[in-house]
């Protein structure tokens, strides 16, 4: 029998909800009154105003004629870029360090422990600034660039990569090629007449390469011109430093998650696998890690969410992410503090909710199926 809540409980819940609505309404009215008292007006019309400033690093085309809304998009992409890069690298490194923590080798085990304790117990902002100046101090000025094979140049202004310019009619080719690359692993597992396609799928990346090659109009190789390197695509040291700072910090936490999850797998699993004669590496990858994964995922999710939020620390080292450009320059020039903070919070909330929805879906997939 399902127990029904009493009428009193219903009333209490509705009263509580009504109270929340009233408090929320009062806050909004109060905000409006305070803004009006300071001769400020609430509204999002400013988003279509001309920005007029430069964004040093952008994935999309950006000119000073663009509007604030585009500045939001450009800086958001920068935030997403560094977050995605850091999540991938922190996961791989964290897995490595976490496994090292459980090594039978004393040196390896304690090196990992020392790394984790050192990184976990110093402030992240300090680490990021440290990485930034460590990067800057080691790299040479533009005129003494380190020349790497393939036309790459490395100096204090960043890593310069040759830029590929596509022919006008071939602009869509790189996208097509990208699609083919994404499709490759799926094609690998595709079954035709009960037989896996397997290595035959490797033909797809080859086609992609050929396609791109056909469409290239010219390749601009970076070279010194005036003060700076001209031509090519620049990967700024700010991005590298922020990437390193976020990665290393998250690595320490992820390593601990990995270690604890592995230790949570019943010992009998390990022993049974060993007694079947599996070698240690196969035990780890075939028996232990798949089981540890389902313990890890929920904890990893919150670690990833933390990392995405921490990307705003890039503002200290001149990385043009959303907090610096939109909640910094745009806020100062438009004076729309309340609106901008609302937008930035909404953006982070959306990113994190989407991400955690994805992780929950993944968690359900790897979770133990109970019948």
């Amino acid at each position, binding site marked *: 029998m399902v127990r029904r809540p009493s009428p009193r409980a219903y009333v209490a819940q509705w009263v509580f909800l009504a109270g929340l609505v009233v408090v929320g309404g009062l806050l909004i009215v109060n905000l409006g009154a305070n803004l009006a008292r*300071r001769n400020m007006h609430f509204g999002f019309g400013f988003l279509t105003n001309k920005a007029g400033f*430069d964004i040093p690093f952008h994935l999309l085309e950006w000119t000073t004629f663009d509007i604030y809304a585009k500045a939001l998009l450009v800086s958001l992409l920068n935030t997403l870029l560094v977050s995605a890069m850091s999540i991938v690298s922190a996961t791989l490194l964290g897995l490595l360090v976490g496994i090292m923590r459980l090594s039978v080798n004393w040196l390896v085990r304690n090196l990992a422990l020392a790394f984790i304790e050192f990184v976990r117990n110093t402030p992240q902002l300090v680490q990021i600034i440290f990485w930034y100046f460590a990067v800057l101090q080691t790299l040479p000025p533009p005129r003494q660039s380190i020349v790497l094979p393939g036309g790459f140049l490395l100096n204090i202004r960043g890593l310069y990569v040759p830029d590929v310019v596509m022919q006008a009619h071939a602009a869509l080719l790189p996208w097509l090629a990208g699609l083919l690359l994404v499709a490759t692993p799926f094609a690998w597992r595709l079954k035709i007449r009960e037989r896996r396609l397997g290595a035959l799928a490797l033909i797809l990346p080859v086609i992609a390469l050929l396609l791109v090659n056909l469409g290239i109009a010219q390749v601009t190789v970076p070279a010194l011109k005036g003060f700076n390197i001209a031509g090519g695509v620049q990967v700024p040291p700010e991005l590298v430093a922020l990437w390193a700072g976020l990665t290393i910090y998250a690595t320490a936490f992820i390593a601990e998650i990995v270690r604890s999850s592995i230790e949570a797998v019943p010992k009998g699993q390990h022993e049974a696998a060993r007694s079947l004669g599996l070698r240690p590496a196969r035990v780890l990858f075939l028996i232990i890690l798949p089981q540890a994964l389902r313990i890890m995922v929920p904890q990893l999710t919150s670690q990833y969410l933390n990392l995405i939020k921490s990307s705003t620390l890039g503002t200290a080292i001149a990385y*043009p992410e959303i907090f610096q450009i939109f909640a910094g320059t745009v806020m100062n020039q438009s004076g729309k503090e309340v609106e901008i903070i609302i937008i930035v919070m909404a953006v982070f909330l959306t990113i994190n909710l989407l991400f955690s929805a994805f992780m929950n879906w993944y968690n359900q997939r790897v979770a133990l199926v109970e019948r």
Partner: protein
Amino acid sequence: MKGILARVITCSALAAAMLGFVSTGWAADVKSETLDAIKKRDQLICGVDTGIPGFAFQDSAGKWQGLDIAYCRAIAAAVLGDPEKVKYVGTTAKVRFSVLQSGEIDVLIRDSTHTLSRNTDLGLATGAINFFTGQAFMVKKSLNVAHVKELDGATICLITGTTLELNIADYGRANNIKINTLLFDKPEEAFAAAEAGRCDGYTDDGGSVAAARSTMKTPGDWVILPELISREFLGSYCRQGDERWSILVKWVHYAMLEAETLGITQANIDEIKASATNPEVRGFLGLENDYGKFLGVDNDWAYRIIKAVGNYGENYDKYFGPLELPRGWNKLYKDGGLQYPLSWR
């Protein structure tokens, strides 16, 4: 006869009482929410820069120094009678106006440019302009650059949340060149990045660039380009809606200029006050007229300001002399500069 005398005495007493009533009425007329709040808490809360030589910085003893700080002290001396009764709130370029609007500080004296949109859209009242300058560039001497126009393709470090970003973009467009920018939250990181060679130079208003150069490892390696690409007239801001308070802030500035015009300094003010015969000087020092009362403070206010911090020129020499920044536009009007006090009438 006796009756007449009595009547005269009564009448004059009555008139005196009425006058007294009226004059106390004048003082009570100065209604200012901010001024009342300061008097009640017996402390001025002054928003200043987080640390820039010349304008606002902490010395080795942790005491705040600088031109902007001198203004905070001067206002405290005028209102509360003690220049030490100030609480300094260091604000970054990014948050300074929000801090002022939300009422956390009484006045913002933070090398901030007076602009149209800040005066209107941001709802801020302008105080006084205490530093006339423009946006200047400092570059490495080894680059052999003599003019801002030659900076095409260069990368310049600067502080975010300022008018500087727009100036650079506009200048680049007008001259058909591209100057790359790198935006930092605080000066320390920007200086360090410039020092490390991440950017070719640093830009800010003229006073701050001179300050930046003084913090470099070898200031001699850096040269400040002679061209200024914008007007940056820096001064204090108050909240709108409390006009009497912004008027007082403005006249504290004029008092420091008037003292310089009259040749009154921190050192000689007592001597001058003791033997003052010049009506201008007597009016300024509160020996005649009720100028102080009109402003909502007492008549000794100007005396206390100069006694506490000195006149404008003294402060300029004290804080910008060591940075080797010539006074230029900040000379008095009678010496060909832009700084002038309004008439003490």
